[in-house]
């Protein structure tokens, strides 16, 4: 999925189209292009699948892994569009069944834009978690470590946990306003754990639901059969499937508005070669999601899960900590703190670039839609 790979692929299509356009055998060349494209896709997803479940770099569902996934999406989007639109007569695009398939694709594109925005908002929550974890780390790193620092760390960690486990559905501003600031002495509530609570202003729109969007995107998403499988409907299907898949992964990984009942089944055609790795990634995440869904959680993002585990363990430690503490326990904790610090560091490095990348994907979807609409307009009346 390197840049040169892609440019050579695009060059190939462009040259091919110019040379072969008027000649016989055009269709065969197209099939060849499509096969090459599918082969590349297959490689890219195989690479993503091969990521380790755990580890210092590029673990499965880690921030850097998701950045890679979005990169794959961007590449694939460019190439699919090249196959579909480059040097092509607009009339071909507006013939059946494409006159139905392309508008359906564009509907998915619009939904994907909203998902990108929802995920961008969700990443804000992840960043908030990062800030809280950083407070905990800096308290836990204090030497000598006293009860005061333990309490400081605990307060930040408890806020972190409640931020992580915030309910998708509870996003109305008023509700959170009541909840977050109603504590305090006057109300007699001595529980100060809400100190760092932040309102969840991640709403895309009222009643908007990420899981419903995914569900709607999978409607009519069926692999082309028979002769259609080797001509234009094929890249439309591939692009649609990849959009849905990538959005589905983003929603599963990153906090997002209303994810309950997130479909764990995508209509992936497993009879084609290129979908093998993609289907395996899908199964793996789907199972993970089923396991965690009931518990209510911030998402499957590797760093968040790690943070959650470390956070819980450190809360237990700070709960029972008494100055000066046992050496053995302190050493064990020091290792956990170092791990948490490492997670924070990775978030600090990766979150902003990921946000930018998702923004880029958003802009790409916008452009993509415009280009298709332009072609449809040239090709005849759009229904």
């Amino acid at each position, binding site marked *: 999925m390197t840049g040169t790979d892609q440019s050579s692929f695009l060059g190939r299509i462009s040259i091919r189209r110019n040379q072969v356009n008027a000649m016989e055998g055009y269709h065969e060349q197209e099939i060849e292009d499509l096969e090459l494209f599918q082969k590349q896709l297959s490689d890219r997803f195989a690479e993503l699948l091969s990521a380790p479940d755990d580890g210092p770099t590029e673990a499965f569902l880690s921030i850097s892994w998701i950045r890679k996934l979005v990169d794959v999406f961007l590449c694939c989007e460019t190439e699919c569009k090249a196959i579909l639109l480059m040097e092509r007569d607009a009339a071909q695009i507006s013939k059946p069944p494409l006159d139905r398939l392309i508008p359906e694709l564009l509907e998915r594109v619009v939904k994907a834009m*909203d998902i990108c925005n929802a995920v*961008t908002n969700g990443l804000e929550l992840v960043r908030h978690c990062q800030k809280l974890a950083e407070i905990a780390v800096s308290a836990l790193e204090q030497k000598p470590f006293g009860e005061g620092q333990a309490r400081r760390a605990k307060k930040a960690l408890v806020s972190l946990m409640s931020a992580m486990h915030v309910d998708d559905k509870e996003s109305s501003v008023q509700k959170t306003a009541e909840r*977050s600031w109603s504590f305090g002495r006057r109300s007699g509530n001595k529980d100060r754990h809400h100190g760092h609570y932040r309102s969840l202003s991640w709403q895309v*729109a009222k009643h908007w639901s990420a899981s419903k969007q995914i569900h709607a995107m999978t409607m009519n998403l069926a692999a082309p059969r028979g002769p259609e499988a080797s001509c234009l409907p094929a890249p439309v299907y591939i692009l649609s499937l990849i959009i849905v898949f990538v959005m589905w992964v983003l929603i599963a990984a990153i906090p997002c508005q209303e994810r309950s009942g997130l479909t764990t089944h995508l209509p992936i055609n497993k009879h084609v070669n290129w979908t093998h790795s993609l289907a395996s990634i899908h199964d793996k995440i789907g199972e993970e999601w089923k396991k965690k869904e009931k518990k209510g959680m911030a998402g499957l993002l590797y760093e968040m899960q790690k943070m959650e585990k470390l956070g819980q363990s450190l809360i237990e430690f700070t709960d029972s900590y008494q100055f000066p503490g046992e050496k053995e326990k302190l050493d064990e904790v020091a290792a956990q703190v170092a791990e948490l610090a490492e997670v924070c560091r990775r978030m600090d490095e990766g979150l902003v670039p990921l946000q930018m990348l998702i923004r880029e994907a958003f*802009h790409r979807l916008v452009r993509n839609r415009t280009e298709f609409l332009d072609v449809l307009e040239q090709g005849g009346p759009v229904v």
Partner: protein
Amino acid sequence: MDECQSAIPAHDGDLHVVAAAHHIVKALGTTKNLSDDLRKILIDLDAHLSLITSNIDSKGGKGFVEVEERLKRVERKIVIWESDRIMIWDSGPKEVSDYLEAVDEVQTLIDSLRGLSMNENQKQKELLHRASSLLQMAMSRLEEELIHMLVKHKQQSEPTYMPSPSSQRNVVYNESVVSLDNESAKEASSKSSRSDECGEYIVDLVPEHVIPDIKSIAKVMFASDYGQEFCEAFIGVRKEALEQHFDILENGKLSIEDVLKMEWCSLSTEMNKWTWSMKIIFRVYLMSEKRLCDQVLGEFGSVNSFCFLEIAKTTILCLLNFGEAIAMGPQEPEKLLRLLDMYETLADLVLDIDALFSEDGGSFVRLEFHKLLEGLADSVKAAFNTFRVAVSSNGSLYPFPGGGVHPLSKYVMNYISMFPDYSSTLNLLLEDQHSDVASLVSEPQCGPTASLSTSCPMACHLRSITSSLESNLHKKSKLYKDEALQHIFLMNNLHYMVQKVKGSELRPFFGDEWIRKHNAKFQQHEMNYERVTWSSVVLLLKDDNPGSSSLSKSAFKEKCKGFSIAFEEVYKNQTSWCIPDPQLREDLRISTSLKVVHAYRTFLGRNPAHVDDKCIKHTVEDVEKLLLDLFEGSPRSLRNSRRMMKT
């Protein structure tokens, strides 16, 4: 400073300290009031001194007695508030300064204890631990005080200068070219009054007198290395306050899908709200928020811009997304004015946005809004083009009844009469599309001799739109079978266009030359009408052989009858026709009268012998009067009335 001073045993070092101490004593003698900073330094010094002495006094644990005493004293001051339900800052200035002093003292003790080398002194460790716990207690408390203070003093009410959003929404031009044939075009009111621009209105988001309190907490928390906690709490409350203000502006949160599927009427309202919210959010709230951040966090470096960005981000993203959804939507002609409003608003704000987010972290915000501005510019151009296309392609199957002013003319002229308000923007955006249009409109105004206002891009585009309108009207006129009615229709519509240009801000863009030319055009149609309708009628009265003095009775009778029939036919037809402009109607009647009545009178005058009631159906006066019934838009028939009179 502590460590090195206490670690210098050299005689020279002592001398310096002694000299400095003398200096201080001398200076203190002349000072009556201690500044806060000075006071703090002296307290530090005091604490340090007592530690050194106690350290020297006994090398064991006993030397910390005084430190412990002091710790106990501040412990009491801090712990006592833990059981109290009243907030410190609500209690009084004395309580506040006592508390802050106590926190200072804890910090000083911690610094001093840390400053001493840790030679496995159990007592020292224990004291440091106690002091740190105490500090944590105080910091946690301060954070709570901060949140309480920020929430309590959050200015809830809308600033009074802010007109309600509903007054903004009065102007909604909701018509669409498509539905024109059925409904008559309403006169569009002028664009949203531009006088109520909010300008730069920095308000106190938190009352002025609370700022020093917030700052004092910030200072202590940052000094004790609790800056992160301060920021999280500050951001949390301020962010929510901003979102509440945003909600008050009634911005329905909309997904892109919602926006793309929205009916024009609601969309227009949302676009207006966006324009308004952008101004209020950036000019009022974010400017004020920035000032608040500067006031509170100005001295803490990059933390300031970080907090500001965190507070503003989600609200900004929300505004950005709506703008983007609009920019990607289909650009129907009716959106043009709203799009122009959006573009102008953002173009106006872009420099402010650059200034508010000048730091690195905010580059993303700057970039996105610049992108959006470009997107909106493209949308304006696209909408302008679809408007032009709609004007020339608006088709009708049936002739417009009565030949009056067509709704398309009304729509187009009313719509473009609002463009002059946006002339600078339109000139800017239409610049690059100028040349092709200028060549399309081969009118002298675009030539080198034209004045500035008639040769600017917008003027050329306006004239190209009206010439599209003209050719469309010509097409529409062909739907009438009656040639005379074709002329009436064109006369009416051209006259309407000229009137609209003359009576509005459009005039300078069209120029006198255009007006002259179009006056001539509709007058030509007026003349053509007269020719087509009346020439044949008048011809009936013409003397066949001008040599003889008068006609035979039968010939006279024949001519009279022919005239009556022809006149009645015209009457029957043209009373249903319509000239909405009273002046134009009057002019046409006068010139018709001159022509027809004059011919009739001459005809009758030449044959005085035959003039009797029996063969003359209409007297000259009758004809004169009946002509007044034409073009009133209510069909009448003379035959019916005659018959009724006879019976």
